[in-house]
């Protein structure tokens, strides 16, 4: 016998669904045609170029993934978009920058090279130190941000903490500009991991370079993400976070200190952003006051893509977005200038047509 489904919960097929399906089909057809063009009919790029695109995409994607997890964590608990998250990443990037700069002046002469500096003599320690400082500074910022700008507004209508977040973001960006100047700064990597150097892999007609910094970034991201996943699934803190995300008042009744858990969430999310910031600096080299803006939005796109509130979703979303950004213009045949348009378009389309994301949980009306 057919399962009895109450009439009122049957969703009628609305125009939205039809438009969704039609657009989806049109786009898939176009995509398939382009893939055919690019790979088979009219190959514009050799396998070496594709390898380069892919490597770029994966590395970039892993950075986005880290930042996206931060967004997801905060949204899952507080249902607010932490606009200032990208700027927390910027703070972490600056932290790492200053560590490298400082260490590049500390002399540590070796018999081989009397002019040697600490940075090059002990690269591993330097990198660890940079990460430590970057992560702590941004974790602290995340904590302060929550205490000052978000906690007092927890009961206010939705608009109010959003404006506060926007204000905090603007404040952080411009404070950084005033403090450190508006010019872009380059990370002084230890020599052993100079940007652009890596293992050469002959593919196709030329050698594709798998950069040291790229590998470092990717491996570290995966490790961090695994660690976070374990944290959320296996530890008490993780359980507490999930409980608070489910229902704050019930969690409070169960004896969980909601305020503390929220603070800890912000600290963790800040730490993740900080790690991402340092990685950004090491791999791409650029750090300046506005560096967090675009990656922040793209990371948010990744989080939404994967289903906001869903951690594995954020990771996958980040990697996906990174790949799309680097290979998209090539595949779709549009100018490379427009890769940001791709990211924003994905954001808009996903939010309009599938706000639950790819792996998403079903969000109730209140949460959406």
């Amino acid at each position, binding site marked *: 016998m057919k399962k009895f489904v109450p009439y009122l919960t049957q969703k009628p097929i609305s125009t939205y669904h039809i438009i969704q399906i039609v657009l989806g089909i049109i786009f898939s057809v176009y995509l398939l045609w382009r893939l055919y063009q690019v790979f088979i009919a009219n190959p514009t790029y050799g396998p070496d170029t594709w390898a*380069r*695109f892919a490597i*770029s995409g994966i590395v970039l994607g892993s950075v986005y993934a880290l930042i996206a997890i931060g967004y997801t964590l905060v949204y899952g608990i507080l249902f607010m978009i932490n606009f200032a998250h990208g700027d927390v990443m910027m703070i972490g990037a600056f932290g790492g920058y200053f560590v490298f700069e400082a260490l590049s002046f500390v002399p540590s002469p070796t018999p081989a090279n009397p002019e040697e500096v600490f940075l090059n003599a002990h690269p591993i320690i330097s990198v660890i130190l940079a990460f430590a400082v970057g992560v702590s500074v941004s974790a602290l910022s995340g904590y302060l941000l929550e205490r000052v700008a978000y906690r007092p507004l927890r009961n206010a209508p939705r608009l109010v903490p959003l404006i506060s977040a926007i204000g905090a973001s603007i404040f952080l960006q411009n404070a950084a500009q005033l403090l450190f100047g508006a*010019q872009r700064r*380059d990370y002084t990597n230890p020599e052993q991991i100079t*940007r652009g150097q890596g293992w050469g892999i002959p593919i196709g007609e*030329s050698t594709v*370079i798998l950069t040291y910094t790229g590998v470092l970034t990717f491996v570290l991201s995966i490790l961090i993400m695994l660690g976070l996943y374990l944290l959320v699934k296996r530890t008490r803190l993780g359980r507490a976070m999930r409980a608070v995300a489910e229902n704050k008042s019930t969690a409070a009744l169960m004896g969980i200190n909601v305020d503390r858990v929220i603070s800890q969430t912000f600290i963790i999310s800040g730490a993740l952003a900080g790690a991402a910031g340092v990685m950004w600096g090491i791999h791409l080299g650029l750090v300046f006051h506005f560096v967090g803006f675009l990656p922040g939005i793209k990371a948010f796109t990744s989080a939404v893509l994967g289903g906001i509130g869903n951690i594995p979703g954020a990771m996958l979303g980040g990697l996906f977005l990174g790949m799309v950004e680097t290979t998209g213009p090539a595949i779709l045949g549009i100018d490379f*200038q427009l890769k940001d348009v791709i990211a924003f378009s994905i954001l808009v389309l996903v939010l309009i047509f599938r706000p639950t994301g790819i792996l998403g949980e079903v969000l109730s009306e209140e949460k959406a």
Partner: protein
Amino acid sequence: MSKRLYIVTAVLMIASMVFAACGPTTTPEPTAMVEPTTVSEEPTAASEEPTEPATGGEPEVCTSDAFGCAVIKPGQTIKIGMGGPMSGDNAAYGIDSAQAARIAVSDAGEFNGFTYELDAQDDLGTPEGGAAVANKFVADPQIVAIEGHVFSGATGAAMPIYEEAGLVMLSGSATNPGLTQNGSKVFNRGVFTDAVQGKFVAMYIHDILKLTKVAIMHDSTTYGQGLAEVVRDELMALGTEPLLFQAITPGEGDYTSVLADVASKSPEIIFYGGYAAEATVIVNQMDQSGLQDAILFGGDGIYGTDFIDRTKENGEGMYAASLVPPASEAVTAYNAKYEAAYGQEPGKLSPYSWTAYDAAAVLIQAIESVAILGDDGNLYIPRGALIDTVRGTKDYQGLSGVISCDETGECGSSGPVFYVVKDGDWVEAPK
């Protein structure tokens, strides 16, 4: 609000609009330009006289001048405005030009008891910033001349605004050829144009470096794209077809995918039309994108200490254009002054130190030749006459060479000189 209030409001609004429209006009009606009158300088002893009631000392030339006179009262400064990027990645250019102009202003000393002042404003080097700064300057009655703007994009956007207000412009660094081709009467420049620069670049690549696989990239700005287009056209005229002509968006951190795309065509040399900020990022990412063996060639926008500091070893062997002032006592003296004041040799921050100084000096000389000291102690500077005087500058001996303006406003003389990075410094490239 009550209905009566609406009616009253509406009536008032219409009345005031009509009143303003029919009232005395402040927009000038174009009349024939007046010949600049030579003024005999009356050495006045005291400058800060307490303001006496104006005895109607406005000279006749002010009423007949198309744009009227700027009136500088005793105690006020004669202001020269400058728009340039003072913050952000390209701050080095704006700051350098402002510093050079300040030396010129202090060298000029006093004029009939009035001192000069440089009002340098940040226009971010963008057209939007240029227009905003221009609107500000036009509203300030003490500003009589504009040095700039420093970047071509900002200059282009600001030009119509100055044209309408009758403010003369003399730029020491805006190189885009189109700027003097639109019939502007107020804009002049004391530096080579990109038409010249592009031609030299193409010749250098073709004849001296003898490279045929050329990729061209630019940043879509007026300057960058303009220069890139000239280089492309000149290369094609010389028989080399560029492999591609690609725009990038300035401000991104990751150009590896664009560069991978370029690398797939295996160029030997990439010409980049744009500024140092992006060029350094590109150079740093060239290796990992498959462009290990290619060299980067840039225009005057790339030259400077920024490039070397930020590319370190990756920058070795890259080319850029700059200007070198012909050696003279004046240049040596200026270099010493600049270094004493700012702790750095001129020409390091940007190539435009000398042309910026010259621009300010020419403007000051023109001001002094048309200004009239009225009986009431005010200084009257007829704007239209000033525009003509600057345009008519001939055989002015400047630091960067002889400055003579033709009828379109091109005043500069020296062409670009190419430099290459060797051992961490810019050295002149072999001819």
